């Protein structure tokens, strides 16, 4: 793997990011509506105040002018400010990162922790009872949308049993162990909803990947040499079967930062997903632009990382 390869990949990323930003900006600018819904209905706000506001936010300028304003400001590190809260976009996003990473990140970790062992065991004995149960649950898991499982969990654990809170608080007053306890209690439901959903599809992926490898000749050779079943599975099968899974997980990492719009909305988790959806609903273009652009950058970045990881894990397909 040469430095020329890295350089080429980085240089390729620039036009694709520029292209993405043009498309995003145009789509957002062409979308109808503006952030002043409540102002329009208030008779005590004269129309000229509304026009003044539109003009002061630059909403009346032609689209290409607005794009270049945005682009040059962005290159200087100025992300613009939210039309609704008048706070800088980068601050707004940074504020949401810890909660997002904590909740979505944990759910990803849980998804992996559940999916890998179950997938491997299910593939080790295909069509056994365990495999069939695992398969059924996996199908149920990824067929149920998160808004349904979320509401179901709220109904059972908050309303019927009254064990867990249904509203996520980002500002917890308690300190020390109490702080951890409150956080764990309120995170259980959103993490479970997301973790099970992600985990379910991952189980299927791990299983089929292990099944592909387990039939290969070298595994048969290893077995015929008299190596124990457990060792064959862990040392020879899983290691090779997980290569595509690792890539898949790497490609899913941007989601950790992008947040989960539906789940965050249901449990009122103040993550990046809920920032994105409220900004979209309020036509708060700079924030939508900021969040989606960060997301696009992450996708490009993790694609690069996945490529590198792939080469590192499997030297056969490394770039020469």
């Amino acid at each position: 793997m040469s430095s020329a390869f890295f350089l080429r990949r980085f240089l390729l990323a620039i036009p694709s990011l520029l292209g993405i930003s043009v498309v995003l900006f145009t789509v957002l600018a062409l979308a109808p509506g503006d952030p002043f819904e409540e102002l329009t209905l208030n008779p005590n706000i004269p129309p000229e105040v509304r026009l003044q506001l539109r003009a002061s936010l630059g909403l009346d300028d032609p689209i290409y002018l607005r794009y270049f304003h945005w682009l040059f400001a962005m290159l200087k590190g100025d992300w613009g400010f939210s039309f609704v809260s008048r706070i800088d976009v980068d601050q707004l996003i940074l504020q949401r990162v810890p909660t997002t990473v904590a909740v979505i990140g944990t759910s990803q970790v849980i998804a992996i922790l559940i999916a890998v062992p179950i997938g491997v065991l299910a593939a080790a004995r295909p069509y056994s009872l365990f495999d069939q149960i695992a398969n059924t649950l996996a199908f149920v898991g990824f067929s149920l949308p998160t808004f349904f499982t979320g509401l179901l969990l709220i109904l059972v654990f908050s309303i019927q049993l009254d064990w867990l809170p249904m509203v996520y608080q980002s500002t917890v007053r308690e300190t020390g162990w109490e702080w951890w306890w409150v956080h764990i209690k309120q995170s259980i439901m959103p993490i479970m909803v997301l973790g099970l959903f992600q985990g379910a599809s991952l189980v299927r992926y791990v299983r089929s990947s292990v099944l592909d490898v387990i039939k290969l000749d070298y595994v048969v050779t290893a077995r015929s040499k008299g190596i124990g079943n457990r060792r064959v599975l862990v040392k020879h099968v899983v290691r090779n079967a997980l290569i595509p899974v690792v890539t898949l997980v790497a490609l899913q990492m941007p989601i950790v930062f992008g947040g989960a719009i539906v789940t965050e909305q249901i449990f009122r988790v103040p993550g990046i997903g809920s920032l994105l959806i409220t900004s979209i609903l309020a036509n708060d273009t700079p924030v939508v632009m900021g969040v989606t652009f960060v997301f696009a950058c992450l996708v490009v970045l993790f694609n690069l990382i996945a490529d590198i990881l792939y080469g590192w894990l499997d030297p056969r397909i490394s770039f020469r």
Partner: protein
Amino acid sequence: MKEQDLRTMIEDVRAGRMARRAFIRRLAAVGIAAPTATMLLSHAGVAQVASTIPTTSRATKRGGGGAVKVLWWQAPTLPNPHFAVGTTNQDASRIFYEPLAAWDADGNLKPILAAEIPTRENGGVAADGLSVTWKLKQGVKWHDGRPFTADDVVFNWQYASDPATAAVTAGSYKDIKCEKINDYSVKVIFDKPNPFWADAFVGATGQIIPKHMFQDFMGTKSREAPTNLRPVGTGPYKIRDFRPGDTVLADINMDYHVPNRPYFDSIEMKGGGDAVSAARAVLQTGEYDFAWNLQVQDDVLQRLERGGKGRVQISEGAGCEHLALNNTDPWTEVDGERSSMKTKHPSLTDPAVRQALALLVDRKSIQDHIYGRTGIATSNWVNNPPRFRSPNTSYEFNVDKANALLDRAGWARGADGIRAKGNVKLKYVYQTSINQPRQQTQAIVKQACGRAGIDIEIKSVVASVYFSSDFANPDTFPKFYTDLQMYNTGPGRPDPGVWLQMFLSHEVATRENKWQGRNVNRWISKEFDDTHAAAEAELDPVKRVALLIKCNDLVVNNQVVIPIVYRPGVSGVSSRLKVNISGWDSNFYDLADWFIA
């Protein structure tokens, strides 16, 4: 009861020949509600125009109430009252900032930072209606310990009226002048006699920010003020933490200017989510103590209330959900503009058709089956405060009568069952925003119209487009590119004067004014223009009420709009919490008095 009788009685009370209570009883006997009666007295100078609603708090010391947790399904984004787009931010600001006076549920004034409510008697309100003098409460301190004075009040006028600040409160401040008389009194001067003088510095838009924190951040720099996000006010709570789009945390202000207030040690205002789960968190699980604006179907609310953890509290409001009739032709384009003033609607300009439509809106069913307690069937455009409610109108649902009217006017049924005259067919497009109760209402109206030979095509538009001032979009309500449309609008204050401007001839929304005119129905009536002008210049409150009621009657009897239901405020309150909520002010207008009994 005639105006003359009323005046004689008011004089009797003033002279002491009749007791106040007797007066209120006699008015109640002829159907005038107590708040209206007291308002008449106070306007006539018999007593102050002051709130008569008892305070909820019986606390005998400050603090000790623990934390109160409130839930808004929109999230607070900016606690600066001058930039508060919408009620959520006004409410978030109101935790920290206060106006000179607040509007109570009856539409009366309660002094907050004012020492007293100005009246004609105490010399506060000038006889010519050109100025009002506010005396400020002394000894009030900002959260950082600096004293609150007249300089702060004058500064707020300068700040909000500067066009470069782009404050959303500019409407209340741009046409007035404000002068400091001494450290504790200010004079507000109007350019013409103003019967509704209690606008600047009053209510949700009248919250006052400190000069010493904001004076360096006026005009274009207003966005950079650090205090925008860390408010320093005079209110009952001080900022502890603010997370934009999520939570406001505030702790008790131990130097608050009202003795023994507030009762709670801290307040947490959480935002986001949706109305149904907010209702659930208060009424069913009891996780939160208060939830704002529960726009949820009433049967759902009733089911949640059975949980016993909380109750629904209704506050009078005046928002009117109505069917608007287009006076111009939305299907003919003149100079690149549809619904142009150069056209006339081919069928909706016929009074018989308008009357028939009014008969075909089944308001009672709409209340009973859709809105319940959250929308009351009405025949009036102006419904609240009660003193402005017209006794002269009524509504009826009668398909036979509508059919008879249309037959008589020559609209005959064609082979397809749709009425027509010449080549004009009674076919209408009826638009509104996407919102379940609205789509249900559309269905009810469509069905009844079908029975009378009027064909209705239903259209619904996403709210953020429909209610935007985006003049490039054809689907906004100000453009009104359909025959009928339905939405909710209200005066936002306990006086319909400004709100009724939306029927004035010179306010017509056209391409020329980028559809920013308020008159989206494009109705032209000299009689209405004159009556409204007379009302806005009338300083005698009794005569003014009569004129505004006449405005209402003109709008209703000409079917410019067909009122459907008026929508009171709906809050969820935990069963232990005692609060006063006003439909005329911020939800937190009485926050310092919130109490647990």
